[in-house]
């Protein structure tokens, strides 16, 4: 009896030892932007568990969060990101321009390499005291609008293009009309924070402004974290389809030898499981079945894409946000629109 038990124990521990020896630890670094902190906490947990179950290896996913542009620059300067999950395609283009990943990165994954989307909505104070319903209400006298600086914030660029796209698509809309509208809009902006989260803090904590232009995910998160009784969300008649893209950084995964895991990690984002997590963190899922499940959370909104109105992000960036571009011409502190 005793001998048998000992034998069993020996075999068991030997198996355990083999198991331990064969389980590798693979580390990924996901360099992301500010509003995805809570999202990736949950996504990472799910992916790590799944990979462990399927392959037996331990995956450690480290996160880095910051302004999307700053993060892109850090990766270009050598931050060893295995994957980047940023606010807009231009920031990943900028990394690709420095040779760290293939220029066609956006074609390597479905849906423009954006596994989840969002749109731009208005966060207003409870009861909507200024009666803000749609874009034109933002430029009524006495309304103060909070948005971060498009020069330093990815979210702010989506805000800017959403406003521009709205004006462009109105009956009789034109470039000149859009210019006038967005110029007027920025006359109502009292504070330009450097990042989306900073703007939310200014609006929510410091009590500045009547309406915050924000990602839908941020607005819903702010509502749930800072109090449903404090803010309402207003969905405008038309808005932009914000597509935050993801990509594997080829040069870094080649060096670290973790390409397989990195690719699986991004593909995982398109699975029903991950899509459900994204929806629970207020990002609009791509999978129809998951969207249906969370339909109550996401009001129907007519959206346009970057591709439809602006070509692509490189063109939009060069036209609107580069030095001397449209934002510099009509943004705060500029001369009146000509």
């Amino acid at each position, binding site marked *: 009896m005793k001998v048998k038990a000992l034998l069993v124990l020996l075999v068991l521990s030997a198996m355990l030892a083999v198991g331990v020896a064969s389980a590798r630890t693979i580390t990924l670094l996901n360099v992301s932007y500010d509003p995805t902190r809570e999202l990736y906490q949950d996504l990472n947990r799910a992916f790590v568990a799944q990979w462990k179950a399927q392959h037996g290896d331990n995956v450690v996913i480290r996160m880095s969060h910051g*302004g999307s*542009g*700053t993060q892109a*620059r850090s990766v*270009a300067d050598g931050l060893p990101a295995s994957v980047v999950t940023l606010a807009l395609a231009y920031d990943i283009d*900028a990394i690709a321009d420095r040779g760290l990943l293939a220029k066609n990165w956006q074609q390597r994954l479905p849906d423009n390499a954006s596994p989840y989307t969002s749109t731009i909505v208005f966060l207003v104070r409870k009861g909507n005291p200024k009666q803000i319903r749609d874009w034109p209400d933002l430029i009524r006298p006495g309304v103060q609008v909070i948005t971060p*600086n498009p*020069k*330093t914030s990815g979210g702010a660029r989506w805000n800017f293009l959403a406003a521009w796209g709205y004006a462009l698509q109105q009956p009789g809309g034109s470039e000149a009309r859009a210019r006038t509208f967005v110029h007027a809009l920025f006359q109502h*902006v*009292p*504070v*330009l*924070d*450097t990042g989306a989260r*900073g703007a939310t803090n200014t609006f929510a*904590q*410091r*009590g*500045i402004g009547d309406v915050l232009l924000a990602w839908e995910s941020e607005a819903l998160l702010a509502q749930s974290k800072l109090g449903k009784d404090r803010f309402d969300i207003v969905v405008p008649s038309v808005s932009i389809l914000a597509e935050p893209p993801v990509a594997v950084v080829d040069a870094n995964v080649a060096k670290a030898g973790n390409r397989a895991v990195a690719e699986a990690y991004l593909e995982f984002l398109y699975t029903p499981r991950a899509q459900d997590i994204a929806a629970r963190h207020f990002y609009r899922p791509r999978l129809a079945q998951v969207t249906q499940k969370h339909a109550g959370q996401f009001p129907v909104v007519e959206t346009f894409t970057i591709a439809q109105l602006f070509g692509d992000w490189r063109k939009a960036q060069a036209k609107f*946000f*580069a*030095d001397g571009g449209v934002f*510099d011409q009509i*943004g*705060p*502190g*500029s001369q009146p629109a000509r």
Partner: protein
Amino acid sequence: MALAKHHRVLPGFGLSLGYTLAFLGLIVLLPLAALAWKASGIGVAGLLDLLAAPRTQAALKLSFGGALAASLINAVFGLLVAWVLVRYRFPGRRLLDALVDLPFALPTAVAGIALTALYAPNGWLGGAFDALGVRIAYTQLGVGVAMVFVGFPFVVRTLQPVLESLDREMEEAAESLGARRSQIFARVILPVLLPALLTGFALALARAVGEYGSVIFIAGNMPMRTEITPLLIVQKLEQFDYPRAAALGVVMLGFSFVMLVALSLLQRWSRRWAEPSS
């Protein structure tokens, strides 16, 4: 004469100076050379274009103008605080004295968040000012408040030792000759304090010009109005425009360096002035 002897008697000249230069070279000069090299990429014409841009000019004006105003406030109140701390005895003096160093020790980001919380319209002080129709947070005043905060210790700490060593006999003599207090202050005390005051002023100014962490939270960051130069540098970086970011850095640095050389000369001058006999 006596100096020549030092060379022979005291050891370690080569070692200490060599180490100092090597360390400075590696930590300060080499990286700054990289900055200058990067900045040179835009050429003289590029630099002039950059400096001529209204945004740049507004930011430089705010950074230098705000720092100047803040340092003037610091010079006045720093002198006052130093005077009170050295000359008067009152309960809580030591505590107050210790508080002076707080801006050195408190992280700038924390200072920025705290100042904003304090001076925002819904903050403890901001509400009171708002009632008076004065906005502090998210205006140029807010920038000034943060700059006063970071520069304050420099003035007090440079003045204190000088005030402590001030020869009171001169004051007494002046007083016995019938001079009024204001005359004594203006003619006897201030001239002796002036070098140290200028030193503290210059250090506070140099520090305020470059400050980022605490200003960025309270400024509001509106182009042409409340956008400081370091933020402009960050914006250039966001666009991968390293040369222009570096060029702005060099411009700020050049100013600071001129100030500090002047300061260093001032210190030597004030030392000779204070010890005319040696």
